[in-house]
């Protein structure tokens, strides 16, 4: 050590450093110059068998029991059934359609033979049983547990058959069987799933296997050569996470990706692009504003009805949604017309809204805000501060409400701050499941779910609606179910408990170099798992 010190004065430091600095500078600059702003070498000779996508959100885990691919379409896992993109469920890991018992309280499912997990082990009834039991067992702390509240148990009948036993007759049960199946070995330990290896090293039966996942950056998948549905022709998929919409659009402009999720307003700027095709997918993804029943203003039936008439939904579609969406009056989406009551809508009629308020005794004050018996027509609408679309919709709602003399104050909050206030303040909500109306509407409208977390946060209670919802979930006949749902909608618009604003259309950009693209009706959570790539395992390179 002391030798170094004594030798220091005689060693010329700068000349020794100078070349190092030069080399570093040159290396940095050279690296810069060899990187063209346009597609790089790999992408120039692009291999049509691999796809690079850009997504706005990164999954928190890859475990279906922690909510990964909860509505299906995950590339890593298969459920017993899968959504066909339009209206039907088709068997995936199930061998054929499920068979309900006559009372609708149990469903027997035959499991597909000769299916293997990514680790080579065989799929059997035990894996299905273990997966659903882990969803139910509180010891695993699964985040999808509440969505299986109708399930009492799942039993293995033989090596290839399982039976689901339900608490009550539940027609929408097949829609719950899209849950990704994981190997029973991975669930051997009854412990909270935050430690599960599946979170980062998924083992499924899906058409793709995870190759690597660099958090906050990208994830890549390779085709599962042994996929039971046939090996995918697109060999490799890379998903890059770029949360900022503008950055993603810019990188898209530079040709870095083969596809991306973009807000419709940004996707529009690519309308004349030679490289990319813009596609818009219908969805059941709604935005609504709750009207808490316990609040003296929002609990008043005249106010509820008047707000529904005063909101310019068309203006919201044309403005914040960039023309891509449809007005909503109820939680039933026109994307599933078989369940829709076309008459159950609210007109945009400001004078009728004002007439309603006048006759209910809400009198306009000097400042233009109405009041009744000393109560000013004023309430707060909360939205998640990081969601710009919800913010814009809340602003549009507030200005529409002001037109009829109702004062709406806005509060952009973190989700932890929103939850405790749900009973007394309104909030902008979003959600939607395309596979079946029950998960979408029952929680939102049924009085038994009032005030339970985000289920029916406004505590809406309507006995006619309750009865029709209960009958609809207990009926397996599609025509009969549809009739009950129409009844729900007719009763709801007579006595609305929220202001449903719009259903979104999700916008995507894609290179048009593959055959097999099919539009799909999308859920609330989408991203590149859905979008044009929801069936990418069936795509083939063109030409």
């Amino acid at each position, binding site marked *: 050590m*002391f030798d170094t*010190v*004594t030798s*220091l*004065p*005689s*060693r010329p*430091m*700068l000349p020794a*450093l*100078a070349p*190092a*600095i030069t080399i*570093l500078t040159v290396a*940095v600059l050279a*690296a*810069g*110059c060899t*990187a063209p702003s346009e597609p*790089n070498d*790999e992408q120039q000779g692009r291999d049509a068998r691999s796809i*690079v996508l850009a997504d706005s959100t990164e999954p*928190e885990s890859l475990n279906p029991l*922690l*909510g990964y691919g909860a509505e299906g379409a995950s590339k890593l896992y298969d459920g017993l059934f899968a959504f066909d993109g339009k209206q039907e469920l088709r068997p995936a890991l199930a061998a054929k359609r499920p068979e309900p018992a006559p009372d609708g309280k149990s469903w027997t499912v035959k499991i597909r033979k000769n299916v293997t997990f990514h680790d080579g082990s065989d799929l059997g009834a035990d894996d299905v049983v273990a997966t659903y039991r882990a969803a139910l067992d*509180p010891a*695993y*702390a699964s*985040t*999808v*547990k*509440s*969505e299986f509240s109708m399930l009492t148990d799942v039993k293995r009948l033989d090596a290839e058959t399982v039976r689901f036993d339900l608490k009550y007759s539940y027609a929408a049960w097949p829609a719950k069987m899209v849950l990704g199946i994981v190997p029973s070995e991975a669930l051997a330990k009854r412990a*909270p*799933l*935050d*430690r*599960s290896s599946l979170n*980062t090293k998924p083992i499924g039966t899906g058409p793709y296997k995870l190759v690597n996942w*660099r*958090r*906050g*950056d*990208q994830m*890549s998948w390779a085709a599962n050569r042994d996929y039971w549905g046939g090996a995918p022709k697109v060999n*490799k998929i890379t998903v*890059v996470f*770029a949360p900022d919409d503008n950055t993603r659009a810019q990188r898209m402009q530079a040709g*870095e*990706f083969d596809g991306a999720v973009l807000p419709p307003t940004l996707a529009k700027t690519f309308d004349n692009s030679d490289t990319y095709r813009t596609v818009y997918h219908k969805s059941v993804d709604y935005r609504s504003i709750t009207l808490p029943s316990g609040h003296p203003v929002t609990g008043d039936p005249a106010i509820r009805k008047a707000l529904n008439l005063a909101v310019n939904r068309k203006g919201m579609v044309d403005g914040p949604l960039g023309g891509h969406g449809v007005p909503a009056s109820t939680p039933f989406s026109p994307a599933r017309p078989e369940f829709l009551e076309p008459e159950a809508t609210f007109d945009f009629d400001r004078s009728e809204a004002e007439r309603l308020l006048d006759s209910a005794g809400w009198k306009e004050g000097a400042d233009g805000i109405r009041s009744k018996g000393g109560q000013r027509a004023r309430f707060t609408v909360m939205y998640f501060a990081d969601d710009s679309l919800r913010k814009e919709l809340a602003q549009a709602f507030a200005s529409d409400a002001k037109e009829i003399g109702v004062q709406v104050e806005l509060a952009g909050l973190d*989700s*932890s*701050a929103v*939850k405790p206030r749900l009973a007394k303040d309104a909030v902008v909500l979003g*959600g939607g499941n395309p596979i079946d109306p029950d998960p979408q509407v029952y*929680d939102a409208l049924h009085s038994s779910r009032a005030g339970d*977390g*985000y289920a029916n946060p406004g505590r809406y209670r309507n006995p006619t609606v309750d009865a029709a919802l209960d009958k609809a979930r207990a009926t397996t006949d599609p025509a009969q179910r549809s009739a009950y749902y129409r009844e729900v909608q007719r009763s709801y618009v007579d006595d609305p408990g929220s202001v449903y604003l719009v259903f979104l259309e999700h916008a995507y950009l894609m290179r048009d170099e593959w055959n097999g693209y099919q539009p799909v009706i999308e859920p*609330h*959570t989408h991203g590149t798992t859905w979008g044009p790539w929801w069936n990418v395992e069936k795509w083939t390179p063109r030409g």
Partner: protein
Amino acid sequence: MVERGEVDAARVMPHSAHRSRYHAVLGLIGRRLLFAVPVFGVVSFGVFLLAAASPFDPLDQYYGVRMNRASEADLARAREQLGTDDSVFVQFGRWVGGVFTGDLGVSRSFRQPVTEVLAERLPWTVLLCAVGLVLAIALAVTLGVLAAWRQGGWADRLITATGHALEGIPPFVLALLSIAVFSLALGWLPVAGLTDAGAGLSAGQVARHLALPALVLGISQAPWLVLHLRQSMLSSLADEHVTGARARGLGERLVVLRHALPTALLPLITLIGVRVPELVTGAVLVEEVFSWPGAAAAVVQAALAVDFPLLAALTLLAAGTTLLGSLFADVTTALLDPRVATDG
């Protein structure tokens, strides 16, 4: 820094043998490491206290979008299973117990063991910081010497003014500016990440993606070092041995580089240790902006998720690095002191 007195004690005994110098330094290291134990305890408990006081609900992060469908009863059961409702003392006790058995706990935001998170991310942070630090030192030496040598000249004025200006610019502003210029406008370097989309992990890829973040980190750390080196160069240029060298008729280049610079470099080496906290904070900001998959960027995610175990581990890591930095500073001062050296 805390025990600078001891270093001075070592300094005022220039005539003792090497052995006792070694002993003094080893003693210093030993005492520092011992002192670090209570520091670590206080720091990690502080993290747990802060997280407990935070308004964020850890279940929000655990559930994500699924929160929309979760019933209150199930949420309560999940809290019980995950132990998020336990008092901060119980949670801290559980964590400390784990640490002694080598289990740093599970990161709630990454949903994997903390040790795995660190093993995956720490190397990238070390790489970024090391390259950034080397760049900062290189800049400091070249620019500091140049400015002192030509004191009052245009180069000096430019370097000093830029140095002072850069000291006031936070690293993330520098990072955003450099992205705007080098990535978006000129298109020379990639915007973010470790490799291009779909490209494998290769040295070339990483080097290209490392260039901007390392440069930003280096430049943001450099001004302080540049200005310090300039100052100590100025005083060493006025030293008697430098005047002596000039009097012997040695060339200017030789005088500056071989006689003045080495004396001026000694304080710089010790200063680098003191700069470690700034380097750590700089790394957090730079990694966040450039989506660099390092440990520093995980701090932000862990904090937002009230992820006690990961936050505690990362804070301890930062505290440890800082303590090591200041120990390095004091040890080098003790060992590299010119009086010790010339005596040897």
